[in-house]
């Protein structure tokens, strides 16, 4: 009896899952919307965190763990975070052995730098394109297993839904080939979802265009629990653009970049003034709110617009080239100014979803046999993610999910090959019908315009500063969009190479996930990490030290709450104007 596992998603989490499965001698089918090398992981710039203590500052995995829990405002369940942090140094060494071109110290060790929310230099990096370098290394390892006949890649195929048996177990997936939109069904004993983030729900963000969240959202509609949806990270620095908000890495501040605006005719370094202990190295939620305060409330943005200076013009251009070239190039190409000479102008942008599919400590969702890893799940960042922790979380989750999926599959009394073919045929027919129905849509609404409207509302009302009346109005708007969805027209293009039909398909679950995010925020009457309500400015542990769990019903999401596992560190007040107090394991 052979065990068959499917991995959906070709970013860091998906590739690592596939490598783990293939390494144990099992076969894996790997599905990706784009060639894996073009996955959104390539956009990660600043680096990957691990307490390797190269600079002799006395860093330790405990400090990294405490920074992560504290930075996440105590919302993350602590045991899996602790395991991840402890594995982080070995993950760096593994990537090093795979040939990732990490920057080096004079002696040839792996170099480290600082990112926000940390007092130590623990971010390992490859120029300012660390994500790209990591994914290329994993992609090559997968290619090696492809060569050995263990991995089969399906690139430019889209996940549509899972197949569930009578017991509710996940038994395979239904996918479509994006070239001809033909639907196919693939049985499997376990499925790992590694489908990334959802920035496109906010219209424009730092995310790639494939980051629609629709795979996770579709699973939510199929019965998977979605957790902490309301926690959306808005990164402090991006270049505003009509098509995309291009990220300007936190490593710019890590290497000495300073944020300022003019006040009374003089540069005002407001982060350094307000947060003397961390200065420009405060975590993202803190920096973003400060920039909003300066631009929106105090009207001190550059040229009266929503922009602040991000300044590296005082740094040594040689060091900039060695450590920040990738991002400086992006700024030069898209804005035209040279950041070595002229301060950059940036503004916050939606960047990362801390929330995602609910998973247990084995990365399994509430649907047996369905696992999730990477940004599409909720487990490692609490209410706010620290810079440099996403890459380690994606790789680590893949390292857990792969072996756990195999263990689950091997424990099954019946393999998917023992199930009646009609189960799979029915799932395929269901999706073919769905596609046929979309092809027949000939209303007046343009799906791209509907998406734009969704994004404008979400960006305006469900990001940095949240008010209950506006959240309610946004949910009503989303419901209006859900109504108007039925009046979409897709033109009369043929299936071959058609892009509007798959886009229209993705938009439906996106609208429903937008409700989860918005209503989750509405219900949570407190401020914690990235979730901030001026009417409820304090963290409220008594009522809200809880994971939000949203389940789909035809009438909208139904919410329940689960206590947070604080096994190691007792929640304490989170502040960055003074140094963080020292903690020790309370075991």
């Amino acid at each position, binding site marked *: 009896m052979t065990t068959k596992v499917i991995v959906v998603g070709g970013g860091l989490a998906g590739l690592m899952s596939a490598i783990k499965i293939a390494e144990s001698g099992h076969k894996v089918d790997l599905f990706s919307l784009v060639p894996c090398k073009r996955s959104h992981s390539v956009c990660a710039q600043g680096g990957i965190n691990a307490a390797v203590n190269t600079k002799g500052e006395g860093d330790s995995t405990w400090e990294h763990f405490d920074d992560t829990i504290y930075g996440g405002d105590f919302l993350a369940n602590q045991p899996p975070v602790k395991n991840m942090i402890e594995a982080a140094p070995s993950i760096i060494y593994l990537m090093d052995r795979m040939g990732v071109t990490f920057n080096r110290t004079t002696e040839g060790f792996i170099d480290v730098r600082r990112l926000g929310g940390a007092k130590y230099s623990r971010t390992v990096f490859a120029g300012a394109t660390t994500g790209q370098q990591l994914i290329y290394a994993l992609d090559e390892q997968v290619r090696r297993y492809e060569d050995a006949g263990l991995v089969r890649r399906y690139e430019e195929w889209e996940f549509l839904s899972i197949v569930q048996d009578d017991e509710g177990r996940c038994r395979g997936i239904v996918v479509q080939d994006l070239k001809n939109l033909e639907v196919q069904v693939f049985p499997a004993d376990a499925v790992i979802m590694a489908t990334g983030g959802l920035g496109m729900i906010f219209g424009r963000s730092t995310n790639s265009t494939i980051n629609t969240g629709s795979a996770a959202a579709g699973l939510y509609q199929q019965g998977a629990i979605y957790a902490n949806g309301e926690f959306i990270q808005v990164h402090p620095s991006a270049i505003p*653009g009509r098509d995309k908000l291009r990220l300007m890495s936190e490593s710019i501040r890590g290497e000495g970049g300073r944020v300022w605006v003019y006040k009374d005719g003089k540069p005002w370094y407001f982060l350094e003034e307000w947060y003397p202990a961390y200065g420009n190295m405060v975590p993202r939620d803190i920096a973003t709110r400060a920039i909003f305060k300066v631009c929106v409330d105090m009207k001190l943005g550059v040229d009266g617009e929503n922009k602040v200076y991000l300044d590296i013009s005082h740094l040594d251009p040689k060091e900039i080239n060695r450590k920040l070239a990738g991002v400086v190039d992006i700024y030069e190409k898209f804005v035209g100014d040279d950041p070595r000479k002229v301060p950059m102008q940036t503004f916050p942008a939606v960047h990362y979803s801390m929330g995602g599919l609910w998973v247990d400590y084995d990365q399994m969702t509430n649907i047996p046999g369905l696992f999730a890893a990477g940004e599409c799940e909720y487990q490692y960042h609490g209410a706010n993610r620290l810079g440099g922790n996403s890459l380690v979380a994606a790789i680590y989750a893949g390292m857990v999910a792969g072996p756990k999926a195999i263990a689950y599959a091997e424990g099954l009394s019946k393999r998917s090959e023992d199930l009646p073919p009609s189960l799979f045929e029915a799932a395929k027919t269901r999706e073919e019908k769905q596609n046929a129905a979309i092809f027949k849509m000939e209303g007046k609404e343009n799906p791209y315009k509907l998406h734009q409207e969704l994004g404008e509302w979400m960006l305006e009302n469900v990001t940095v500063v949240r008010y209950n009346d506006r959240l309610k109005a946004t949910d009503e708007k989303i419901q209006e969009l859900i109504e108007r969805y039925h009046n979409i027209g897709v033109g009369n293009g043929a299936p071959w190479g058609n892009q509007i039909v798959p886009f229209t398909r993705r938009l439906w679950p996106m609208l429903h996930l937008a409700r989860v995010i918005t209503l989750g925020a509405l219900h949570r009457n407190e401020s914690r990490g990235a979730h901030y309500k001026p009417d409820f400015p304090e963290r409220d542990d008594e009522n809200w030290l809880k994971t939000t769990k949203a389940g789909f019903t035809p009438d909208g999401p139904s919410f329940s709450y689960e206590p947070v596992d604080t096994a190691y560190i007792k929640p304490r007040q989170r502040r960055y104007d003074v140094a963080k107090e020292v903690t020790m394991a309370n075991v």
Partner: protein
Amino acid sequence: MSKKITFIIKRCDNPQAVAYWEEFKVPYFPKMNVVAALMEIQKNPVNAKGEATTPVAWECNCLEEVCGACTMIINGTARQACSALVDNLAQPIRLAPLTKFPLVRDLVVDRQVMFSNLRKVKAWIDIDGTYDMGPGPKISQNVQEAAYELSKCMTCGCCMEACPNVNSKSKFIGPAAIAQVDLVNSHPTGAFRKEARLEALMGEGGIADCGNAQNCAKACPKEIPLTRSIAKLNRETSAYALKKLFGK
């Protein structure tokens, strides 16, 4: 009336169909790039004659020139549509698909061959396993910096498009895959299987098919020194061939 930018786009419904050019007028905005213009056409698929048409199909993803997806021919040159700013382009702006790869639809082509070529040359490091075995070898800053230059290749296909020796009649794997051999062979552990990769480069469609036109390095959006890698591997494959002939 607000300023409009004219785009003349080569369209083709499928590989068997006849291609045609269609003109679009897109309202201008500051810092507009080609991708943003194509997005506007999606939202309003009407051509310059005012006729309703199908939205133009094209590929894109990261929109910041690190994923390589949105490569197309813009005013005669292969480059990424995201970093092609309208202000810097002669108008009307002509968009066409890459010609060295099988066409899918409109501006979309199938570049799988580039990934297959990476497999042919075994562009990976053969690690023992993913279990914890401590760090890899120490590497000097100079070696890291040279490797980083090569490792930025995003498999976009600009070098393939520019190379006269990559064409429908040849099996030449092209400059990108050769540079990746240089990258892996320059790594201390990668070097252990150096000869297997040299063998691959000496096979059909290998490095001997390079005609030394030197277009590739100029075409690379990441300024990867492709010709330097090719020259180096030319020497190494020759030396290896001699060694095989006489050294046994």
